[in-house]
């Protein structure tokens, strides 16, 4: 089969690979019909995530058709159209039993501090991902769900991470009616977090980024006020001025490890890999939220330490909430919101690229060319 493979920092190509096989009785093999490149894929593409091995296949956002199932699979049959959450999880461990699907203890030998994720380095379990023609899906009775007949395949692929994560990020903010919410990052997750903040009753939603075309999307798609931090000397002060010098009630970090805005932080984290992530957005979040406010973190960070302004968080009495999204928990409610027309996730898709041209897809997205917000990958013969 054809699959994207990592060849070292900033380099990927498409290769002929062995078909994935059933390794466990509850495995399924899924033929991928749509996959996506995620902002967090850029961290592994840039070589920032420890134990990212040359030859591995990325891709944790994908939908497809069941091709084969293991002997203990009860809920899926070959031919079923399925959407697959980016979390790999057993459904039965201490954490899964409490709904913490992104923190499963039974799927990742390489680390106890992270769950299992498709195509996201050995630190996340060493699974190949879905930017390929076929992919192994463990715990087929737990993670995947049939795509409802009424749902568009491209909406479904956005539910496997970006929309679910943005919606989850807004929930972590504990938004009360009339709250002012600031979202750092106008990528897919930030746009969905901004949109979700309204659903939870926010009174104002402000999105901060440095890419004008993404801020434009934040205004039109997410009805948000916007700030381009590259045009502000000190974005924190200006956000204070915009919030009557109290600060925002809730701030959501939807940027993560490669945050721009402070060159030293960016270089030590993204280029020299001396930090688990550049905490520029997180530090701005801590400084621009009001005292007693809540900072929600859904941006991806690596396992190493980062230079976070923790004293400010302590002295301001902040609540810091964070996790990777337990995706499947979000689905029933998000399905309703999509059906009711409150959300149309595929509105943010800007590029559809054949699997064979995936290297150019990564470059466009990494360098933010051509107005790129969300790129879908179309495997051969689709």
């Amino acid at each position: 089969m054809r699959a994207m493979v990592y060849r070292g920092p900033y380099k990927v190509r498409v290769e002929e690979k062995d078909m994935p096989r059933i390794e466990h009785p509850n495995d399924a093999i899924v033929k991928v019909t749509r996959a996506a490149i995620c902002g967090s894929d850029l961290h592994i593409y840039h070589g920032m995530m420890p134990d990212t091995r040359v030859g591995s296949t990325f891709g944790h956002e994908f939908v497809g058709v069941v091709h084969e199932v293991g002997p203990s699979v009860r809920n899926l049959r070959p031919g079923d159209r399925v959407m697959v959450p980016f979390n790999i999880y057993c459904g039965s461990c201490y954490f899964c039993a409490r709904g913490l699907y992104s923190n499963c203890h039974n799927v990742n030998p390489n680390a106890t501090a992270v769950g299992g994720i498709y195509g996201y380095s050995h630190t996340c379990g060493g699974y190949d991902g879905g930017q390929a023609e076929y992919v192994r899906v463990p715990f087929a009775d737990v993670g995947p769900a049939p795509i409802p007949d009424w749902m568009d395949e491209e909406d479904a692929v956005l539910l496997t991470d970006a929309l679910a994560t943005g919606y989850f990020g807004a929930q972590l903010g504990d938004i009360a009616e009339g709250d002012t919410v600031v979202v750092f990052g106008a990528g897919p997750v930030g746009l969905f977090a901004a949109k979700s903040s309204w659903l939870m009753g926010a009174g104002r939603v402000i999105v901060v980024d440095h890419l004008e075309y993404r801020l434009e999307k934040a205004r039109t798609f997410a009805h948000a006020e916007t700030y381009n931090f590259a045009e502000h000397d000190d974005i924190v002060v200006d956000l204070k001025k915009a919030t009557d010098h109290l600060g925002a009630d809730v701030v959501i970090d939807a940027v993560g490890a490669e945050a721009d805005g402070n060159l030293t932080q960016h270089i030590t984290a993204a280029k020299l890999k001396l930090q688990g992530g550049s905490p520029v957005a997180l530090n701005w979040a801590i400084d621009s939220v009001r005292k007693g406010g809540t900072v929600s973190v859904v941006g991806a960070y690596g396992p190493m330490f980062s230079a976070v302004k923790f004293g400010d968080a302590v002295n301001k009495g902040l609540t810091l909430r964070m996790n990777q999204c337990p995706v499947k928990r979000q689905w029933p409610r998000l399905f309703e919101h999509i059906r009711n027309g409150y959300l149309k996730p595929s509105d943010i898709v800007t590029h559809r690229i054949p699997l064979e041209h995936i290297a150019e897809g990564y470059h466009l997205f990494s360098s933010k060319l051509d107005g790129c917000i969300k790129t879908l990958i179309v495997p051969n013969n689709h």
Partner: protein
Amino acid sequence: MPYTAQKPPRPRTADQLRREIPGWGVDLDPADRPSVPRERTDLDTGAHWDFPERQEERQPRERSIEHKFLPPVFGTSIPLKGLSGKVRRLAYTRYSEARAAHWLLLLAGDRIDAWESHLRSLAGPRPDNPLSETGIPAELHGHGITSRREGRRADLAHQWMDPLVVAGPWVLAVTGAALAVRALWRRRS
């Protein structure tokens, strides 16, 4: 407004927001938010086991020393090999996830892996092609120049470093090799 107990006035009332923004407030009640409360034990995950059957360990699988045993299910992509494999195995067997040495060794393993793989590819049927693998041709049809000129972008301050990350080690290696050859040549003549 002076610093009083008042919440700052809102630009729009709830009724205005409900009219202007599709779905405004439908999840106002925390009971409608699927991740509230954080932990819930009443969800049906679909698991029909107390502990999953164990996947066959076809090759010795490295694991964090913070795990009691090899978890029942794991990824089988790219088993450890070569010098990078030795470095990575040391990181796993010797240091917990709490130790910086664990992660720094894994990052060192990644850099060695890239080198090993590039060299192996040069000897194989499909050598690495830095041009197509970096996706640089997308600069042409992706409006490389106009995209960067639009607005004020903070990432231009470091984008020029990207080619150095890719090509820099090669330039250093080739220069080093050339200097070594020249030094040897001079000593002989």
